């Protein structure tokens, strides 16, 4: 076994060396503005920038994604090989993360799809559609094998899981509501064409690109350090795409199981999952009165419309505030402050706007229109969050019956860590 790990370590080094071999690729580009002509004879060097990714590489990316998903599914469901998944994880990290620099990623593609649905002027590239849809399709059939070893964000966290500690189940399940909030805001901001917050606040993109904002680098570093002890914190408590994947996974036709055969109730796998994705058999209900919890359940079902209404109402209240994330709204506010003498000096944005010659009234009208959009969007978002909260509360109040140790289809990322804990697995091998 230890030789296997030596091989993996060697593979890590090899892949990193390969990464170094890919020198930056530059292309000539055109000056946006005519450059000054220096009388001293100084000649401006040619401006260079990264060339757009060629069609070939886009198709290659899509092909690699498809192949990686297929291999991950095979390794998780058929071969049940944790080592294989770990090697694939390292490959995905190297390819989708460090080489492709984390873009396009399936996680961020949610925003592209959203903006395509809501903004008529945006044309979504085919490769983005593929990156959005393929993981969902695979998840619908095979569970979250994309999370297991293909997603670069999951991959970088997965290799940092060194000494995982148990997060109390109630805390873990409670914190898993945050991704719904994040997804809601991401969709709202993308739908209004205001911001791609998933990309903007991607904690690992700075590592993949070997550069980025200091705050994001620090955030990513903290997540990785935390991830040494709390497995995959971003996947569990932030990832908005994980929300959609979890819906698909819950309905998946096939899914990774802890044991390849009958569960013998040995309890050896009980603490094996660093992501709290193993559900224990439910407790005996022999002495529990049948009516217990029914009142709460009925109350929650009755209150569900109230949860939704509250969400809609709160959404309406914060719509205007949220609209300030849109750069045009912020610019309008700035211009208005300047025009009314509340700010003495122009900033770069307002100066640039004034140089365009556009009248302020046009910008103000645009900002008002955006604010209306945000108000409607926030009401929908509020309603969605209210509905989710209500359903979550109801689901927590439903009594369930489970006899064996099972992977939680919603939260299990199919990483295969539990395989080696199962004596039935060892027997069969």
């Amino acid at each position: 076994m230890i030789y296997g790990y030596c091989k993996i370590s060697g593979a890590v080094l090899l892949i990193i060396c390969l990464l170094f071999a890919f020198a930056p690729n530059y292309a000539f580009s055109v000056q946006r503005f005519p450059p000054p002509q220096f009388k001293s004879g100084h000649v401006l060097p040619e401006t260079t920038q990264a060339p757009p990714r060629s069609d070939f590489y886009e198709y290659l990316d899509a092909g690699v994604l498809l192949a990686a998903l297929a291999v991950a599914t095979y390794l998780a469901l058929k071969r049940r090989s944790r080592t294989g998944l770990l090697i694939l994880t390292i490959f995905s990290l190297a390819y989708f993360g460090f080489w492709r620099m984390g873009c396009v990623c399936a996680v961020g593609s949610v925003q592209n799809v959203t903006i395509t649905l809501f903004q008529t002027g945006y044309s979504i590239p085919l490769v983005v559609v593929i990156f959005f849809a393929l993981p969902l399709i695979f998840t619908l059939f095979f569970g979250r094998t994309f999370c297991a070893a293909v997603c670069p964000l999951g991959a970088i966290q997965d290799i940092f899981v060194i000494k995982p500690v148990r997060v109390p189940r109630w805390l873990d399940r409670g914190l898993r509501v945050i991704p719904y909030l994040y997804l809601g805001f991401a969709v709202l901001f993308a739908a209004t064409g205001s911001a791609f917050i998933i990309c903007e606040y991607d904690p690992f993109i700075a590592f993949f690109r070997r550069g980025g904002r200091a705050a994001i680098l620090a955030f990513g570093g903290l997540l990785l350090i935390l991830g040494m002890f709390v497995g995959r914190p971003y996947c569990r408590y932030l990832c908005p795409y994980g929300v959609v994947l979890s819906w698909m996974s819950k309905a998946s036709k096939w899914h990774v199981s802890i044991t390849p055969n009958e569960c013998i109730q040995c309890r050896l796998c009980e603490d094996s999952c660093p992501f709290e994705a193993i559900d224990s058999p439910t407790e005996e209900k022999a002495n529990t009165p049948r009516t217990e919890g029914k009142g709460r359940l009925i109350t929650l079902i009755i209150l569900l419309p109230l949860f939704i209404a509250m969400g809609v109402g709160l959404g309406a209240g914060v719509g205007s505030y949220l609209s300030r994330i849109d750069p045009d709204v912020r610019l309008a506010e700035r211009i208005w402050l300047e025009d009314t003498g509340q700010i003495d000096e122009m900033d770069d944005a307002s100066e640039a706007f004034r140089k365009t010659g556009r009248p302020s009234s046009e910008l103000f009208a645009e900002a008002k229109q955006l604010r209306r959009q945000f108000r409607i969007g926030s009401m929908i978002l509020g309603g969605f969050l209210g509905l989710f909260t209500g359903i979550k509360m109801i689901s927590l109040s439903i009594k369930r019956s489970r006899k064996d140790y099972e992977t939680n289809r919603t939260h299990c990322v199919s990483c295969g860590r539990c395989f080696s804990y199962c004596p039935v697995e060892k027997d069969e091998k």
Partner: protein
Amino acid sequence: MMNKTNIDPDTWYSLYRIFLAVAVIAGTFSLIVSLLLTVNYIAGKQGDPLDSERLLELKEELLRNPNNEVLKEDIRKLDLRLRKEYFRRRRFTRIGAYMLIFGIAIFLGSMLPVMKYRKNPPMPDSPKTSQKAEASRTRQLVIGIGSFIAGFAIAIAVIDRPNNYEIPQQQPVADITASEEKIEIQEIPATQVTEGSPAETQGTQETQVETTKSYPTEEELKKNWPRFRGPGGLGISQYTNIPEMWDGTTGEGILWKSSIRLPGKNSPVIWGNRVFVTGANETERAVYCFDAGSGELLWEKPVVVAMADPEPPEVSDDTGFAAPTPVTDGRWVFAMFANGDIICFDFDGNEIWSRNVGPFDSMYGYASSLLMYKDLLIVLLDQGGAEDGMSEIIALEAATGKSVWGTDRPVPNSWATPIIIDTGEREEIITCGSPWVIAYDPATGAELWRADCLGGDIAPSPVYANGLVYVTNTYETLAAIRPGGEGDVTETHIVWEAEDGLPDICSPLTNGELVFLLETYGLMTCYDAKDGTKVWEEDTVETFNTSPSLVGDKIYLITVDGITIIVEAGRQFKEVVRNELSEGVLTCPGFVDGRMYVRGEENLYCIGEK
């Protein structure tokens, strides 16, 4: 503990120790690299060459002393040093990032077997929290998170006040020094000035008044010479008492002569007892105000506009750096330069506002002059090629310089100046470009009509009389267009066209009955204004850059050598007299009540009787 059967426990332990040592070394290495990168980042934040306080100070100093070569050299050295430092830090970060990735990869690769070796076996008997209690706590946490978010949202909803973007009418404006309500101007009563001679009004009391009147009346405009080619931009003097005889070499008929420090191809504008011109070279720009009565330089104000391109624009000798003629409304004077600087001064020389709309992509350098419509300053910004989509016409609020409207124009760079006409039904801005003559609504900038009849590099400006707009350019046409249409009026509103004697610089002149064209190399052609019939043509054998002007029934033609040829504006060419000035003239004269103001290559002249 691992139980691989083919390796004995001692070997396992030795391997474990080795991997542990490697992990510790790699981890320590990664930590040190992280610290160094952090220190480098913090230090680098202060080393951005663009934010160097010292460099900015030196650049400001250079603005004050533009010819200080030592200072320039110091700036270059400091700039180079800062840039080297900046890129050194960038290199350090890049290399450090690779080293960090390398260190972490080794650390993780080593930690995998270490943790595997040290992994505790499962403990199935460990106590478990009751699932019921877990569900209860989860519900509490969800409710807690929901309540927190709801509370936060309620707080925002209560505190946040949506902005309606209403601008109070009497609010001060941020980026200027004056406000609409409290504009303090010097009272330059045009009627007083023009009723008497400029000399009489030399001592006009400059009382500080608050005014609510926002723009001058048509009557006031006609009594002055507020823009390029005077009222309406037609090149027609409202006064007939303009001298016809003078001699610049002897000083006869020359009331005064004042030198202008900086060169400029712009023409003088006159309001009351003030004469304004501008001047500029590669490094300096200035606005000059002269006393109309004495020629005394009342003030010279340097023009320094933030955000202007520090590199001087590419201009030709024919235009220079100060070709646009300023415009005034009696309260303020507005000037523009080839680099895109637009500035507004009051009559005391106090800067009201400034902004830059450059740099321009103009083949010969920007030269269109400013004009005004009521409270708006209209600026034609034709540049680049037609396909570049860079041309536009914009309107700025005269009091503040704020943009009011802007309309893109489908034409390349041009050098003509628009005029504003009143058709009786509406007012229109008439612009000339290649190939379109386009009319705009001066209040909104909306395009009204366009006609396809011009081409090439357009410099002659349009004129208007008796319901017809006259436009021309060399190698193309002289066209009479009936305004007031909509859309493309090429087929419907061009009344007549002519092809002889077409000018490339000088604008046409019309008295309503006849249209006069003046070629650069002296050929003068006269057409019937109604049907375009050629009435006469005469070769004056002179060279002109100055557009002809009409004074009563006389036309004043000024050659590039400063000779003014006065001819009759009739159906036959008849030269009346020639007067010499002592220097060349490339600009258009201004005429106000008995006086003619001419800008020579170096001096401003006032021709009139003492």
